[in-house]
């Protein structure tokens, strides 16, 4: 059996205006996990805890089997981390950075680094100062990918990239999929990227993980059901239906626990089911956050 690349249990961290609460997260070896949340949801705090850059107030964290933050030096040998606020040295070249990383990490793969230079359309003798934002993002990713780390932790890896560059980056991330011992955790606003390459999706909002499961289950369980009702009837509330929009005799029900029996239940109540639609990850994400916030609201009011 393969182990866990990341294990977080009951993890919390308090700031003055924000708390990360009771985070559970498991990433099996060989899995790609998309970490999705609105701005300020706690994605970066979670990632920083995994990297030992922030120490949790509560809970247990292990990365590649090493307890964090106690064994962070050992863990980081095999972890590649890239985030938006990472700075390269402006006054030196990309080549300088490549030689620097190579001198620290014995796993550096020079041949792969050469390939990445070509694919990312970068020049190694160019100073960082002269690079565009997108080129800096790609340079940072190159420095991480060429080490071939067992765990990649990427904070918004495709933000600010043009479509061609985004495609190139996704392609390099899928290279990692070819090896069942390598794992990726990446946060993103771009649900399309996440939907395409993730095995597991984790949604975070307001410091809590609101949902986490394998992607196929997510896409399977969320459905929009369009129905036509006999006049003068309200759509009966069925369990698993989290939202209903009705105008006149037409209604749209959203469910997060779809089962064909749901449609037959409507039909046996004389309701005609017009269409059962699957939803994109973005639609699921928005509905999920709204549903979770309403639930918390009701809990407070009750």
């Amino acid at each position, binding site marked *: 059996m393969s182990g866990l690349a990341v294990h977080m249990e009951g993890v919390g961290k308090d700031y003055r205006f924000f708390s990360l609460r009771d985070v559970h997260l498991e990433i099996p070896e*060989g*899995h*790609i996990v998309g970490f999705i949340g609105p701005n300020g949801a706690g994605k970066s705090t979670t990632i920083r805890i995994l990297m030992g850059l922030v120490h949790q107030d509560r809970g247990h964290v292990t990365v590649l089997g090493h307890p964090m933050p106690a064994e962070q030096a050992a863990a980081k040998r095999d972890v590649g981390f890239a985030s938006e606020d990472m700075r390269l040295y402006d006054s030196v070249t990309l080549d300088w950075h490549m030689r620097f990383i190579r001198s620290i990490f014995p796993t550096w793969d020079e041949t792969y680094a050469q390939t990445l230079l070509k694919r990312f359309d970068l020049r190694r003798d160019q100073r960082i100062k002269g690079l565009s934002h997108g080129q800096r993002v790609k340079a940072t990713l190159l420095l991480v990918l060429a080490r071939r780390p067992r765990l990649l932790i990427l904070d918004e890896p495709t933000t600010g990239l043009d479509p061609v560059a985004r495609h190139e980056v*996704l*392609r390099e991330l*899928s*290279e990692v*999929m*070819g090896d*069942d011992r390598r794992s990726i955790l990446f946060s993103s606003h771009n649900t*399309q990227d996440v939907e*395409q*390459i*993730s*095995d*597991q999706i984790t949604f975070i909002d307001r410091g809590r993980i609101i949902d986490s499961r*394998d*992607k*196929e289950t997510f*896409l399977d369980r969320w459905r929009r059901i369009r129905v036509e009702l006999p006049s003068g009837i309200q759509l009966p509330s069925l369990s698993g239906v989290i939202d209903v929009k009705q105008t006149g005799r037409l209604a749209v029900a959203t469910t997060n626990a779809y089962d064909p029996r749901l449609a037959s239940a409507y039909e046996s109540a004389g309701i*005609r089911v*017009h269409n059962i*639609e*699957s939803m994109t990850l973005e639609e699921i994400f928005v509905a999920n956050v709204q549903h979770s916030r309403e639930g918390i609201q009701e809990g407070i009011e009750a």
Partner: protein
Amino acid sequence: MLSGIVISQTDRRPLYLQIMEQIKRRVAIGDWRAGQPIPSIRQLAVELNVSVITVKRAYLELEREGVITTQHGKGSMVAAHTDLGSRIQQQDLARHLEQAVQLAALLGLSTKELELRLREARHQMADAQKERS
């Protein structure tokens, strides 16, 4: 071995269904022959830039439908059926009929009326073919 499968971003169906359909088409027209090895789950995931779990789902459903078989340690291959082409066409027909029935219900057509339309469509096709020849 490259599959040549191309994923569509505008196709609203789940990715695994797209992969299934394109593999079935390759099998139906004989590009992928019975018993021929096909890419492993991870190979296809890397080629298509889609997650391993999505390809795994497609392969599991294809196995269930008898299109491919997977042997532990040997990988996946096209199943040894000879009638696969016609079976896939049968499934296509069933799907189109289902859609026709749904549309007929929307239009409020009775079963008799729908039958009539089906006969008309057949006659029209036959006439068009006669004119061409």
